[in-house]
């Protein structure tokens, strides 16, 4: 591949346009037009790839529905009830609210597929609770909320895993199962850190909720707690496709907010629809642009070339996974996660297959890695979201998130080198990988 080949020129143009601030979807479409022009192919191919790709990849339809489900969860009083439930359970320990923050992300992770939605949904509420009366330093609270939101897309359902399934053909059901233990592992790492800092920094204990109130509080939160059961039960019993399960989850959230919690007005329903549609259109443009550019990548046989190159280094599977992790962690500092999943990850997939790496293990590892990118400075979207919600300067959040980042990278290392952390649960459900 020479430096002046049409492919490398189009890659340079796409990169340049993206760096100059053009939306990445547009940049990929424009760069692909340039490639087609240079190679003398039909320029209508851009429309063909975009439209046919969107028309035939049915699985992407679950993205807007999961976004909607998460929005609907955030509108109602469901969030309050869940937080009260978490507080009743772990609030009584030192650093109680910090543990509540972690526990609520595990529960919310079972409902929404998106880390940003998790942080935006409960972030503000957690922040107010934690900083009231100067209980916790605001920067610590914001850093913790960002760190706990990372767990969201690792524990199913997960929009990034759906996108990985799209590019790798791995089973969504098994990917979702594979994320459960790594997600809990990361939550444990965070809790260990909180226990450490709580002692050192003297974090407060919450007023213990009397045990006799526990049944009532659980009952009030019960319909919301059932959501993951509905969602994942539907998928694993084989009753529903993941896409239908996403719609069912949104339907369930809507029904319990209206009928049980009576907390949704027509106006707020419209607001959630519109906001989910906007988010979905923006993800959809990125996916569409990637579908177009993927045509170019496929025509050029790039993934196979990468495989040739990497196997010529005689990398061991472990060496390869280390290399991929290192590349993705660096890219994650500057690039947005969905873009990495759609553009960079497919290039490594044939090599991973040749080396005999399990596609579900690889997928979960990649998603965990990319989620860490959301909280790595300088381009950590979750850090921006938390600055936006709380007004705490980015610099202070970054300082307090470093220990969490280190702990989560350690968890990533375990997930990478001990495939059973990912694969044990899917195998229990009949995965033959």
């Amino acid at each position: 591949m020479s430096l002046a080949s049409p492919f490398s020129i189009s890659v340079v143009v796409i990169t340049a346009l993206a760096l100059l601030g053009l939306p990445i979807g547009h940049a990929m479409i424009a760069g692909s037009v340039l490639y087609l022009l240079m190679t003398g192919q039909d320029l209508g191919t851009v429309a063909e790839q975009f439209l046919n790709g969107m028309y035939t990849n049915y699985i992407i339809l679950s993205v807007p529905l999961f976004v909607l489900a998460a929005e609907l969860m955030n509108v109602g009083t469901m969030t309050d009830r869940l937080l009260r439930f978490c507080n009743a359970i772990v609030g009584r320990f030192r650093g109680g609210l910090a543990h509540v923050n972690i526990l609520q992300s595990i529960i919310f992770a079972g409902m929404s597929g998106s880390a940003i939605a998790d942080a935006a949904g409960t972030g503000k509420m957690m922040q107010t609770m934690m900083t009231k009366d100067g209980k916790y330093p605001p920067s610590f609270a914001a850093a913790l909320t960002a760190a706990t939101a990372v767990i969201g897309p690792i524990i199913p359902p997960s929009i990034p895993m759906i996108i990985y399934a799209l590019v790798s053909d791995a089973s969504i059901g098994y990917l979702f199962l594979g994320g459960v233990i790594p997600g809990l592992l990361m939550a444990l790492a965070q809790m260990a850190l909180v226990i450490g800092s709580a002692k050192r920094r003297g974090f407060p204990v919450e007023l213990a909720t009397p045990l006799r109130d526990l049944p009532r509080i659980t009952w009030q939160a019960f319909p919301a707690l059932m959501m993951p059961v509905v969602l994942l039960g539907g998928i694993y019993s084989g009753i529903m496709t993941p896409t239908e399960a996403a719609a069912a989850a949104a339907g369930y959230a809507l029904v319990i907010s209206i009928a049980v919690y009576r907390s949704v007005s027509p106006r707020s329903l419209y607001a959630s629809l519109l906001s989910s549609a906007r988010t979905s259109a923006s993800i959809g443009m990125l996916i569409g642009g990637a579908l177009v550019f993927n045509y170019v990548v496929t025509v050029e046989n790039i993934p196979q070339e990468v495989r040739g190159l990497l196997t010529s280094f005689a990398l061991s599977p472990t060496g390869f996974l280390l290399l991929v992790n290192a590349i993705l962690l660096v890219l994650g500092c500057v690039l947005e996660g969905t873009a990495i999943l759609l553009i960079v990850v497919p290039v490594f997939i044939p090599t991973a297959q040749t080396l005999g790496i399990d596609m579900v293990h690889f997928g979960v590892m990649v998603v965990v890695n990319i989620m860490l990118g959301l909280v790595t400075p300088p381009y950590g979207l979750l850090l921006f979201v938390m600055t936006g919600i709380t007004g705490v300067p980015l610099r202070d959040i970054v300082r307090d998130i470093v220990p969490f980042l280190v702990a989560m990278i350690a968890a990533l290392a375990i997930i990478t080198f001990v495939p059973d952390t990912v694969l044990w649960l899917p195998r229990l459900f009949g995965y033959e990988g």
Partner: protein
Amino acid sequence: MTPALRALGAWCYRRAENILAAMLAAMFVAFIIQIVFRYLLNLPIGWTQEVTVIMWIWLVLWGAAFVLRESEEVRFDIFYASASPRVRRTMCIVTAIALVVLYGISLPAVVDYVAFMKVESSAYLKIRFDLLFSIYVVFAIAALVRYIWLCWQAVWSRPAAVPGMTKAGSDE
């Protein structure tokens, strides 16, 4: 722009938003119908699948054409956000010209492709594909108009008036 024109623009923008939200609602409802028919009534139907996928394509391209603001699209904006207004103006002009040229050159072929698709119709609803896919042409033209406008603004306005970014990115 006169106030009347501005008001008209704002009115149209809200209608475009209404349509976008309605498309997601239609997708959602079609899925619920599909689930009810398949699992409760045991009558699998195919048209709902078609409705959802068509609504999805239209939602993305309609949204990108008329509703999403630049700041809402997934973009890499570390440099853009930290650039001085003067540099930002240049960045804006360069990207707008590149997009206008490349989308402009491909537009005739895109129109040809979509028009050619009239030979096929969708499996259940028998809608001609040129109609289903026409939204791509709308999207491409809207992108052309938008970036010509952005470029025009960047060239003729004072640098400080080039839209800045207050927050980085907006995506999932």
